[in-house]
């Protein structure tokens, strides 16, 4: 992690987006693992959630990620014809095509949602996908529009999550006061 800090933007005062990645166990997770073992430098903004298959990823996962304060999401799995379960990614492709289009219709910037095929051997591609997603979402800024949907009293700031450690201690007190 310390490797990647020097390429993220915190030092330069840039917004650090929080990105949730939903990846399949067989291809992208292994690819991301390869990126790590290959010591590729990449942005550290992505939290990976490993699932059996892209076919297991319900669009509700993405909605839930946004609800819980994600600024962007990545959905990634095996390339077509490579699915461990033969057809899970084909089903996912249709589901996410429809989801992508309807979210855009509702007014969610599609650049907040990255969909990719990353195989187990494509550590470098994973790095590129992550860095591009972070660059895109950083340019868009925090997903304040979604956070503004939170009910009164539920805390409009993003709930203390994995990145809480990254913010100064005073920020926690501020969030409590608001």
């Amino acid at each position, binding site marked *: 992690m310390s490797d990647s800090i020097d390429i993220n933007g915190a030092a330069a005062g840039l917004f650090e987006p929080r990105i949730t990645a939903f990846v399949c166990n067989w291809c992208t997770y292994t690819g991301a693992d390869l990126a790590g073992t290959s010591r590729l430098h990449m942005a550290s903004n992505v939290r990976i959630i490993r699932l059996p298959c892209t076919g297991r990823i319900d*669009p*509700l996962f993405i*909605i*839930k990620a946004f*609800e819980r304060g994600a600024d962007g999401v990545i959905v990634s799995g095996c390339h*077509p*014809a490579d699915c461990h379960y033969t*057809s899970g990614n*084909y*089903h996912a*492709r*249709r*589901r*996410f*095509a*429809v*989801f*992508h*289009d*309807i*979210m*855009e*219709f*509702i*007014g*969610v*910037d*599609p650049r907040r949602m*990255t*969909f*990719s*095929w990353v195989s187990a051997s494509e550590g470098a591609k994973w790095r590129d*996908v992550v860095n*591009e997603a972070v660059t895109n979402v950083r340019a868009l800024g925090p997903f304040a*529009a*979604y956070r*503004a*949907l*939170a*009910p*009164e009293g*539920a805390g409009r700031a993003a709930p203390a999550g994995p990145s809480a450690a990254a913010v100064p201690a005073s920020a926690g007190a501020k969030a409590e006061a608001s």
Partner: protein
Amino acid sequence: MNELRELARTLLTDGTVRVIIGWEDARRGARPAFVTDPADADRLIFDTRCVHNLVTYLDPRRDNVAELGKIGLVVKGCDAKAIAGLLREAQLNRDDVVLIGVRCGGVLEENELPAAVPLTPENVAPRCYGCDNREPALVDHLLGEAQPEPPRPVTTIDERVAALDAKPLEERWAFWTEQFGKCVRCYACRQVCPLCVCERCVAEKTRPQWIEASAHPRGNMSWNITRALHLAGRCVDCGECERFCPVGIPLSLMNRKLQQIVGERYGYTVSDDPENAAPIGDYRLDDKQEFIK
């Protein structure tokens, strides 16, 4: 109309069905009618006020309807598409229902009128414009005379969708958050939908709770997106969800947009052919994937 009453009487008398579900005249317009006695067959009507999609009574969860015995159901073209949806998803046995199709030339947007009135661009239900199933094929009996095409409404749903699509993202977001913000989570849209047939809805799951249950903007957004997505490629555009919505969320815009998406991407048009596989749950090796890196 006499044809319909005559057929209903015959089916009830000879025991083919135990109940005919159709429409009847009431003080405030047409309403669904359950006719079990042949003598009551004269209550049945069909005119431009018969907007209800009665297929919702075939929902396998409605065991109180099933208890009535074999059903004869009066269906318009759009309703027949919902029947096809239930058959496609194995929620209905074709032999368990007698379908009485009526030729339909469109219905009114507002059905609470003491008498039927002819359709005009101002009063027609916008969804009827461009209907491709005015003579349902998936029926046991087809009644009525050939009907003219419904008039073009003042503003079509496609035009409203296009107008919304032409707006910038922020305005679309503002539009939908305002609309969904009105939602009171009564789930009338779900209850009336002939194709919302899950035994247990994801909106009622609490461990974990995927969709926040109280009526605040965040839970409403989640619910409304989910409702629409679960009907992608399944919605028959009967318009009941929007008609039932007590706060007037324009659900037909969401539904129409989804029809356009599956139409453009997968060449799918919802029909009353149960063999016509729905696009979600099906796939082609060469499906468009321009949004995937």
